[in-house]
């Protein structure tokens, strides 16, 4: 567990490889209907270089980043997401972030974090502002 949490603290990065196996399992889980997320030929016909990983899947790792960092479940209260560029099949996406605000509220602590994901080229793919409660 990380303690205490203070403004400016950097969150340890989390690297995720979006392999065919991982993406395939996710598509099965949600009964994916959009071929962009499982059909490479289709994706290329639209001008993408490969299968595009669903944003709702890639965004799952923002709360996960906090969860893994703190070593305990975090109660996310609000998350503002903006998608900028797609993550492709076989991309390794790194999730990073830092704490921008931390306040103590009795036995609880509320934190606000700026999180983002980037590909191997350092391009920012998505960003999230997350408000979460600890304790």
């Amino acid at each position, binding site marked *: 567990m990380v303690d205490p949490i203070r403004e400016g603290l950097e969150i340890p990065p989390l690297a*995720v490889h979006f392999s065919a196996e*991982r993406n395939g*399992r*996710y598509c099965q*889980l*949600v*009964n994916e*209907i*959009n*071929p*962009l*997320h499982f059909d490479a030929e*289709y994706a290329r016909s*639209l*001008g*993408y*270089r490969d299968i*595009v*990983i*669903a*944003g*709702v*899947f890639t*965004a*799952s*790792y*923002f*709360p*996960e980043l906090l*969860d893994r960092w703190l070593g*305990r*479940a*975090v*109660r*996310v*209260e*609000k*998350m*503002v*997401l*903006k*998608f*900028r*560029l*797609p993550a492709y099949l076989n991309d390794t996406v790194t999730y990073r972030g830092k704490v921008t605000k931390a306040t103590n509220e009795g036995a609880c602590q509320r934190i606000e974090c700026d999180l983002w994901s980037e590909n191997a080229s350092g391009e920012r*793919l*998505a960003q999230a502002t997350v408000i979460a409660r600890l304790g």
Partner: protein
Amino acid sequence: MPPQALASGLGECMISARRPSGPGSFRPGSAITHRKGRTKPVTEANDLETLRKAMEEAISRIPVREIAVPAAKVREFREILGREGSEPSAESADPIPGGERVPIPESYFLTLLAPLSHDLFTIGIGRLLGDAVLGIIHTSSVVEFYDTLYCDTPYRLKLGFSGLARKRGRMGGYLVGTFPHEVYDREGNRVASDRHVFFLRTRGEIGNEEELHG
């Protein structure tokens, strides 16, 4: 602008002839009843207000879904994320008299809403706009949790519509639609929501430059 510059989030959900027909599939070129009972493809409507009303009507026809997320499904999801063998932690959840329930992790929330987005693509946008829409792009979300969600507990998922604007970019025309996804418990309490924004890439000019909010 290359397509990938616009594609993000869910990515584009194309209304494609390759998609199988039948319930739940897109039906390009569908017509709607339009003004005084005449049937006219909505894509011929050249004002955004008409389109907004048609969209509102189409979304209102999408039924409220009732779901209960099995704990096994959440377990599988966490395995996919790379949390093999782990259970969602109950320590962050509010104590439940009479036993412990497994909370749904926030990381699962957007996945939980996937059926609503599918309804939006198929029943809503697909049938309304048909092949006038080249692709649907998830560009942003505002997610709020008001209470903990639990596995194996029934929730109602409701899709809404709160705004439509027309924009023009280097790739052509597109519409910006805001579609609230809301989750209610059986008592009717809203437990979570997501203000989903989609860009709808269009073939031609649909609507005018005016921005409207429903």
